[in-house]
């Protein structure tokens, strides 16, 4: 016990004596948490639109003003030649071309039917997809208005129409920050846990202090606990800071119990620290450790469901995410923060991550050698 205490004492002393590390530990999450959710916004705004109007009718005018009235679209040019419009697309000045044929109004009035042409610049797939969808939606809306104008009279529609009204649950305003912030918080906790642990142990290898430790009668478990515990505490501290920030800046109050989050985080950190420990047993220099952890983290983050939904990944990737602890924590965070899930609801997640912790740590301990 005395040995473990002095190990912890030493570790905390070293951490708090290194101003650079301290800044990274505390400032990095704060800045990231403030900047990233604001930037990582999925709502596509300012789709640059170019309208080719061959009709010049009051209907085409009405349609265009309806489209530009939303803040999704930004009218780049109103022209009468498709070639000109395409030039805009080629120069990346426009994302979307809407072509209104010459007899648009006539067709609508006479034949109850008209066609519009839409060309999408699909270099940025997300923008093209969403921009196209918005435009279709607005045109559909316009269509309904036109019909109402013409078919005002019958009280009951002669043709049955089905109208859908959607209600967003758990996040009624579809506020991206509410579901991004908890996810980003997970990434931060993971980074601090995995990177710092790996780097810390490898640093001892690099400057040779581990040699001096290894000739002492200190036990393997004491050394490893002495390394894991400080970062476990730091990880929980980062989580706390993050939760406070998301409350102050984004006004996010977890619907579920904070305690649930901490219980899960406590177990989760064990898994992450085990990963860092494992990396450190393989790496011989801080560069190696850094690159290795970075590589692993990259995969975990990209396949963690933070930026892209796991459900829309191909099946093999979905299977992979089953082995990704980051994905579990992101899901749990969203469940607890948005939906108010309880410990009972996340029991499977908790058990899985606990299993990860055991496997990763055992592997790391097994691979850690006091002698070569």
């Amino acid at each position, binding site marked *: 016990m*005395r*040995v473990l205490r*002095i190990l912890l004492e*030493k570790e905390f*002393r*070293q951490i708090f*004596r*290194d101003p650079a590390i301290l800044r990274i530990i505390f400032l990095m999450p704060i800045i990231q948490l403030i900047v990233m959710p604001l930037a990582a916004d999925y709502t596509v705004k300012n789709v640059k639109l170019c309208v080719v109007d061959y009709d010049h009718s009051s209907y085409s005018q009405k349609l265009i003003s309806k489209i530009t009235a939303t803040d999704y679209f930004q009218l780049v040019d109103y022209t009468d030649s498709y070639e000109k419009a395409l030039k805009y697309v080629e120069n990346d000045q426009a994302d979307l071309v809407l072509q209104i044929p010459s007899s648009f109004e006539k067709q609508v009035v006479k034949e109850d039917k008209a066609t519009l042409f839409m060309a999408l610049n699909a270099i940025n797939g997300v923008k093209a997809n969403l921009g196209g969808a918005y435009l279709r939606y607005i045109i559909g809306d316009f269509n309904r208005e036109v019909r109402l104008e013409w078919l005002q009279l019958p009280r009951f529609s002669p043709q049955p129409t089905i109208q859908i009204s959607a209600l967003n649950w758990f996040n009624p305003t579809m506020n991206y920050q509410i579901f991004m912030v908890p996810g980003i918080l997970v990434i931060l906790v993971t980074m601090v846990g995995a990177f710092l642990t790996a780097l810390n142990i490898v640093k001892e290898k690099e*400057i*040779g*202090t581990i*040699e*001096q*430790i*290894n*000739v*002492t*009668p*200190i036990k393997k478990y004491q050394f490893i606990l002495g390394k894991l515990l400080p970062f476990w505490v730091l990880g929980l501290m980062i989580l706390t800071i993050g939760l406070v920030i998301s409350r102050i800046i984004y006004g996010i109050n977890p619907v579920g119990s904070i305690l649930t989050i901490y219980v899960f985080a406590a177990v989760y950190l064990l898994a992450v620290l085990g990963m860092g420990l494992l990396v450190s047993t393989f790496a011989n220099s801080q560069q190696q450790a850094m690159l290795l952890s970075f590589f692993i983290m990259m995969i975990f983050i990209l396949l963690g469901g933070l930026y892209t939904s796991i459900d829309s990944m191909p099946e093999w990737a979905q299977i992979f995410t089953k082995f990704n602890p980051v994905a579990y924590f992101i899901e749990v965070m969203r469940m607890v923060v948005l939906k108010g899930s309880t410990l009972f609801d996340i029991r499977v997640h908790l058990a899985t991550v606990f299993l990860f912790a055991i496997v990763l740590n055992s592997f790391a301990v097994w691979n850690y050698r*006091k*002698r*070569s």
Partner: protein
Amino acid sequence: MSVSVKVNGVSKSFTTGKVEVKALQNISFEVSKGEVFGLIGPDGAGKTTLFRILTTLMIANKGEASVDGFDVVKQYKKIRNRVGYMPGRFSLYQDLTVEENLSFFATLFNTSLEKNYDLVKSIYQQIEPFKKRRAGALSGGMKQKLALSCALIHRPSVLFLDEPTTGVDAVSRKEFWELLRQLQTHGITIIVSTPYMDEASLCDRVALMQQGKIMEINSPKGITENFKKPLWAMRSSAMYQLMLELRALNEVETCYPFGQYHHVVFKGNPVSEDDVRRMIGNISQREIEVRRIPATIEDCFMELMHQ
């Protein structure tokens, strides 16, 4: 006297890529209790590898070794309690203070500075004024003393010092050796490695190492006495020229620079200065100072290397 460290037929090799480096080849020696035993050899002789094996940090490929009667492989836990190791590189925590480093290592060995103050006193007193200073901010000599204090904090029966004086100034080196002598009076066996031949004479016995092999083990006096050939020191105004010309002579067996002189061994072992003068008669330079000198450890080392 009882045996403190026993090494028997130890070999260790490393493979880097496809090249196999034989760091130690069939090393055997014994060190008695309370002895100051020196491992003398150039860089790459295998001194550090030997230390790492004896301090249980590395396992030998072949052979066995024991420290204090405990096997370095099977009873390594026992050994870790009773040896002090000071690696060649300063390996204490630079961001902890002198005091913190000491109490940290004392605690790891389940002891405290107070309990062993009498042993480390003479060393620790010299760094005590700086006990609140971080180890990284100490001078080279101070760092050595701190490292030695840390290695001694648990009263080891055997002390391994890997090149303790490398990179330390002449005065500190001298002080350091005086400290080692003091420690010897506490009955501590000291095994010290050094690339400096002049330090060899300060050991009780030395082993001359070269490329993973021990060439000779003897007392410093015994080693120099084994040097049977007459050795000559020469000096002139153009030293490099002199060496080239001496080496070109048939009569010269070896010639190497040594401080301000060249040390020369002649074939046929001439004993009088006149004979030597005659042998070097054809050299273009006049004014050559010639002196017969007793051999030093370094001369013996050079001799062994040429065999």
